């Protein structure tokens, strides 16, 4: 069971939840208020939804042996565009206007993903630098779109996306569920998952085996852009405003972290969509736990750093070997050692 790739992520998540349960037993209680469900678990899913969606796209990119640093900037750009378009309209709650704004910003997000994909697959750049370009420039573009201001909108229709509720649950949970099912089906019920793993292992070999690596790469980077765009929409609609400077800040790092904690190797070629979901939930649960236990929010980062380190160390093969070796030598009987030498 220890060998199963989901063992460590699930164990960490369970440990976190157990800690919460011991610390405050009403952590798991869910109450009905105004016809909606409320509770810490619902909050974790709701506030974690943008991160989960970004991390899903990131999983596929990392499985290809790539990385996408630009997701945070794409989140900011998507939010800025949709808020700008809606704020320009006369009736901000009109369905046609909101749908148009969502459509345009999703399209832009996909185009930005395509840009990354073209740089990586056609120009053959290293993914980390290719996406660094958009990461640096994208923040500037988002501020340019918003003219350095925070755009606020008062659209009930748009607000529904990130803050509305459906069947007693926050609407964003349904978006997450839809994306998760989509990615799982695409990668595990079609050959796409196999192609992605194969390209992640060895692009040249996969090309020789007849896989169109360029097309797959382009599609995956576009999908990652799409995910970032959706996350940007959820984030900006949740607070009904777009901040080009701070929206989605450090999202790329949190998303990469979620993917790595979930057991996907940064070297590519092996990935777990469920693991990513658990990884993102670990990060969100950790944040919630820190707030709940009354630890000053300033040291959230310190706790996060230690958790990241511990999770990575636990997953590191050489660390486990070193621990086991030390444990073994310590219990080595002294007489046997002497006998062997004689």
């Amino acid at each position, binding site marked *: 069971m220890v060998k199963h790739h989901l063992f460590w992520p699930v164990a960490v998540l369970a440990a976190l939840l157990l800690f919460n349960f011991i610390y405050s037993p009403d952590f798991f209680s869910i109450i009905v208020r105004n016809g909606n469900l409320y509770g810490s678990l619902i909050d974790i899913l709701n506030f974690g939804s943008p991160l989960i969606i970004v991390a899903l796209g990131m999983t596929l990119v990392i499985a290809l042996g790539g990385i996408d640093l630009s997701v945070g900037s794409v989140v900011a750009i998507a939010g800025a565009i949709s808020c700008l378009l809606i704020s320009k309209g006369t009736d901000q709650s009109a369905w046609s206007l909101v749908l148009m704004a969502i459509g345009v910003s999703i399209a832009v997000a996909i185009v930005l993903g395509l840009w990354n994909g073209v740089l990586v697959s056609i120009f053959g750049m290293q993914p980390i630098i290719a996406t660094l370009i958009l990461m640096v*420039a994208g923040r*500037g573009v988002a501020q340019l779109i918003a003219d350095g201001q925070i755009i606020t909108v008062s659209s009930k229709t748009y607000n529904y996306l990130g803050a509305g509720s459906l069947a007693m649950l926050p609407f964003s949970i349904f978006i997450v569920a839809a994306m998760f099912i989509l990615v799982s089906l695409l990668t595990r019920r079609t050959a796409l998952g196999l192609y992605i793993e194969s390209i992640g292992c060895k692009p040249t070999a996969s090309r020789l085996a007849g896989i169109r690596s360029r097309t797959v790469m382009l599609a995956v980077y576009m999908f990652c852009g799409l995910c970032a765009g959706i996350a940007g929409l959820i984030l900006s609609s949740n607070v009904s405003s777009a901040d080009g400077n701070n929206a989605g800040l450090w999202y790329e790092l949190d998303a990469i972290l979620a993917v790595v904690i979930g057991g996907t190797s940064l070297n590519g070629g092996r990935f777990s969509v469920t693991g990513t979901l658990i990884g993102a939930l670990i990060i969100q649960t950790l944040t919630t736990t820190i707030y709940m236990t009354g630890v000053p929010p300033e040291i959230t980062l310190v706790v996060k750093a230690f958790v990241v380190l511990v999770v990575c160390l636990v997953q590191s093969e050489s660390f486990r070997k070193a621990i086991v070796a030390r444990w073994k030598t310590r219990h080595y009987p002294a007489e046997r050692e002497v006998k062997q030498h004689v």
Partner: protein
Amino acid sequence: MFNRKFIPIVVTLGLFILMFAVGSFRYTGFFSLQVFNNLLIDNAFLLIVAVGMTFVIVSGGIDLSVGSVIALTTMVSASLLEQGWPPYAVIPVVLLMGAGFGWGMGAIIYYFKIQPFIVTLAGMFLARGLCYVISINTIIIDDAFYTKVAQTKISLPGGNFISISVIIAIVVVAAGFYIAHYTRFGRNTYALGGSEQSALLMGLPVKSTKIKVYMFSGLCSSLAGVVFTFYMLSGYGLHAMGLELDAIAAVVIGGTLLTGGVGYIVGTFFGVMIQGVIQTIISFEGTLSSWWTKIVIGVLLFVFIILQKLLSERKWTLRS
């Protein structure tokens, strides 16, 4: 001189001269030695960080923690000074702290085979978080030594001046140049970045080189933090936000390959200077907003990476 491997540096240098020339023709008062000196004064800490970052990137790694180590250095310096420590004790302590921080990250990267990206990311969170543990507010420094260093202007002939920080930065750049090209450690770093396995098979000290590279970067970051403290005269957890990206961008614009094994300290120097010129031009223009800096740096990164790509591809076709 016209060796192919120097082309990226020549392009970087040419671009710097071109941008400076464009600025000089467009704006009155731009073409003066003092504007150039101001570039050095305002970017002294970035220069120091970028030198350390060049070593890490040449060795095939990356260090995302530099910005937060600077913030931590300003914070620790400010709080120690507040408690009445003398400056000559504070500075060695923070330098040791930075080097120790880098050593720790390097050791984790080497012994446990975790990607540098993740380890230094955790280091970035840790250092930034430790700042807030010390205090969430700005701590003002009113120590006599620090204010004196901050305000000292070293006059140059012609009525120009530089600050003490500039001298530190130039010494670091010179030392970096010497270490990279004239010492064993430098050669080992290049070999490690070229191919870790080959370096190991050749019997080079991969372990100590790898750890030392991160230690050097940590030392540079904390030294940059000291210089930054002179510059800001305060300690604050939000200082130097996102500086790691500026440093990486400067290193890449300076012609260092992110894959490792190829790179020049001189290139990094001009990479930093180009970023400084962009900011100066934007401030001279007046009507342009600060976010244009990011967009221009993004475009420059793109151009340089494409250029490197073209150069390295031509090298391949010649060889084969």
